[in-house]
């Protein structure tokens, strides 16, 4: 690890580790605040220094809690932001000396190769202020992301449809709540998602509305799928190929949906998009294995001779996903790569 973590970063890591901060949204919001503080409070004289700073802290966050990809995503977004702001400011300065608008097509094409080696060490006036403005925008975007996703509920859910979901995702909860308000005679089937059984919480939270709710064990997913119109699930993160790293059980749902040709809609705000691939070398490390006692009691006779696994995530390949709904609209899985290039600079994929 290069460099030392700042106090805020240590604090954040600790809070996430002991579970005080949980849920992707909360973690993202907290991370953004931490980076804001770094930009605002730390000493840096030029963009290059700042980028190194952000990169270091991002790397520390990622190596400490690799399962939470959103922290690194935020760092990447900020890096991209710094680059853009720097270019913009530079362009403003250069506008008077070298009018870019009058460049020939040939010049424009060849120029990009030079652009890679932009000298970010040049100090720029007003960079800090511009960055803070943009971070404010990002924060607003973050806050409204859930609302923006919800707004699309009516487009996808129609009256007297049967919807199946899994576990308890906050995006899905809000999405369904909106749908319940607008549409009548909905049936929502919730797979409980053992061993945490957080599906029960979702059922309790939705049960207030005018809607029929059925909670089923995970084993009944396939049996119920034949009557389902749409599957709507949340995800932990979206990988670069459009695959999902989602709660354990999602793969079962997706496969069953494929068998009955039921569309699978995944709700994912933009900050969950990660430029990561499921690489084969460390395939095991991709998942997180939880507490053995979730599965079998320590008191039981078999506990010492059995090997117990309680995986937390499933990988769902992109071909099983029909549609992603993000805060900026719906996308096919094959379009994720495009979104990634818009969100992040390719140089920042590796932290």
């Amino acid at each position, binding site marked *: 690890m290069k460099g030392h973590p700042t106090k805020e970063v*240590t604090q954040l890591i*600790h809070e996430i580790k002991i579970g005080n901060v949980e849920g992707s949204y909360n973690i993202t919001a907290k991370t953004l605040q931490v980076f804001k503080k770094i930009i605002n409070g730390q000493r840096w004289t030029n963009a290059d220094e700042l980028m190194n700073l952000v990169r270091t802290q991002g790397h520390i966050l990622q*190596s*400490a809690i690799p399962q939470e990809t959103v922290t690194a995503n935020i760092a990447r977004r900020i890096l991209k932001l710094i680059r853009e702001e720097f270019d913009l400011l530079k362009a403003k300065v250069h506008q008077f000396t070298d009018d870019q608008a009058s460049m020939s097509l040939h010049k424009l094409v060849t120029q990009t190769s030079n652009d890679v080696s932009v000298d970010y060490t040049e100090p720029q006036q007003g960079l800090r202020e511009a960055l803070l403005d943009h971070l404010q925008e990002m924060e607003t975007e973050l806050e409204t992301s859930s609302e923006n996703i919800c707004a699309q509920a009516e487009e996808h859910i129609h009256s007297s449809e049967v919807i199946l979901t899994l576990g308890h995702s906050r995006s899905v909860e809000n999405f369904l709540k909106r749908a319940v308000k607008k549409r009548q005679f909905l049936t929502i089937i919730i797979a409980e998602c053992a061993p945490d059984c957080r599906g029960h919480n979702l059922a309790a939270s939705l049960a207030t509305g005018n809607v029929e709710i059925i909670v089923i064990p995970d084993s009944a997913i396939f049996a119920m799928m034949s009557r389902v119109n749409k599957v709507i699930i949340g995800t932990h993160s979206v990988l670069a190929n459009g695959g999902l790293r989602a709660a354990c059980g999602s793969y079962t749902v997706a496969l069953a949906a494929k068998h009955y040709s039921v569309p699978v809609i995944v709700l994912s705000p933009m900050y969950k998009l990660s430029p990561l691939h499921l690489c084969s070398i460390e395939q*095991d490390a991709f998942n997180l294995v939880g507490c*053995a*006692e979730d599965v079998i009691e*320590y*008191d039981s006779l078999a*506990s010492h001779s059995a090997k117990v696994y309680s995986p937390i995530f499933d990988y769902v390949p992109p071909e099983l996903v029909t549609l992603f709904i993000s805060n900026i609209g719906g996308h096919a899985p094959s379009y994720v790569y495009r979104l990634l290039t818009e969100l992040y600079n390719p140089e920042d994929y590796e932290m």
Partner: protein
Amino acid sequence: MNQFEKKEVIQAVLIADNNVEQLRPFSDKNSTALLPLVNVCLLDYALDALNRSGIEEVFVYSSLYLQSVREHIKEGIASLSSWSVNMTVHVIGGEGCRCFGDAMRDLDAKALIRGNFILLGADAVTNADLRPIFEQHKKTVKYDKGAAATLIFKEAATCNVRTGNEVMIAVDRQNNRLHHHQRLRLHGKESHFEVPLEVFLHNSEVSLLHNLIDPQIAIGSPSMLSLFSDNFDFETRDDFVRGILINEEILDSRIYVSLLPRGQYARKVNNWLTYCMVSQDVMNRWAYPLVPDMGINCLAQQYVYLKNNIYKSRKSTVIKAALRENVAVQAGSHVEAGTSVSCSVIGKNCKIGKNCVLVNAFLMDGVHVADGCKLDCCVIGVGAKVGAGSALTEGTVVDAKSVIPSGKVLKNVIIKCALGEDDDLVEKLGEQAFIIDDKQDTQSTYASDSEDDVPPTTATGIPKVAKLPPICDESDYTSSSDEDESRAVTPLVDDTNIFLAEVMDSLARGFQEKSNPDFLILEINSSRYAYNMSLKEVNFYVVKAIFSLEDIKEPANQNVLVAINNILKQLGPVMSNYIKTEDAMLDCLRALEDICEENEYVRAKISKVVHYLYDKDFVSEDAIISWYAQLDVDEHRTLRQSLKELIEWLNQSSEEEDDDDDESD
């Protein structure tokens, strides 16, 4: 006032030097709190657990190795250990503090503890959330001013491995008050437990729990410390518990119990066996999130988690070696080709040679193992070197910096690199390797804290690192030799055995108290229905029970006939109640056949015994003859021989024409 209460900081006390002798030779040189378990110090596990529970102030109490503990804490804070966030750690200690009780008295004198506090040993490994239990304790204190402590236990399958941490308790179901506390014996199983009668008389609902592990974690009230100060004979925590239970009224204090819910793990590392068990549990993810790949005690994650619970550092090299299951390999280590590793921990910068076999081996940092070694159930200290072709097995513990020459075969020994003052040398292996006596005799203090009638610990001494015997009795598990022994000692307890035991109890009591045979019959019948025995079995077992009475087993003057006569005079009606039909008589004789195998006195006099039964009309002539005919020729040769005369006589006396040749069928 309310504002002060809201700002209350939960304090915790960690006792760093406990049970010093149990972890030799490591404990001879350094605090056991600094012993690495899956490459993280025990102290860090305890601090991490406290931090996760939201504790903000911790006192680490150390006496023997105060300086090294202090340095460790300082290093931890400097390197941003995960427990250093939001938690202040003070290291305190006193000279001449030799036991747990002294530490508590010292704490009381220093007056650092302001209210209820959490008390645990530095050797506790737990992922439990102590906050709810702490809140519960506060409620209890509000209700009962004399609540001195809440003890925390974890239910576990204690199976056939005893580590010295198992307890049996009697607890009131309604208010979780502790009424009886007994530490289970380290060696051998108890045949009975003695629980005072008052426990059941004074409480409406009492649970006896015998499958508990005592991780020695407690929530203490301020009165707990003063109780230690007032009672100078409290040396250990067990003394305290026993003292309070005995003198409940005088001391006006009570102890409460809390069991950890599912998903919360707690165990104590106080000898090499528990060291091995807890290491496995940590690697098997029972202590999640205190698992190696989640980064215990450090910010960055150090391991990649692979299939079969293998934790491998990215900075380690494993060349064509088999990591089978439950393995942790720390950074900078190097494992050569052809080596197989399972259920083991490899520390930082270790070097393992070619074609080694490591099973249940715990290597600390910088250990060098040369080619072709076999390490099975052993612990090897920091920087030790093991020569080529050595075999260290069955709980061998190697001290730091020892150098074991090539080709040694060592079983169940402690090896030190240099002789200390009070070490008894057994054998010198090399310049930096001495086998020392592991002082098992002095360990009796450990067992003596349970009941007085417990015999002093036998030759087995402190539990060593060992392969845990499988719990299931399936034959496809490879069974170690000592497991077979233990299985022979404890016979299968099924319904028939319980029934037999009950009948024997009833009969023995009936015989001694000369009670009415009718009552005995009633008792036996009720046992019969309780265990669902067929009539045939009842006949068989009643006779067996009668002949298994103490008087017949060991008859006075070795005259078994007199003894039988005495007993049947008393219990004859019971027997004749069951032995009525021909079939029943056959059952009766079969039972005798069983008895013959167990009791040599009866065997010697079998023909007389049968004759006696015939005389007293318990069995008929026909029954005897048909039984005799059924006896297997080869198996019961001696029996048939001794009965031959009797049968001949019976045949003659009945004056029936019979084929005399009884060997024919």
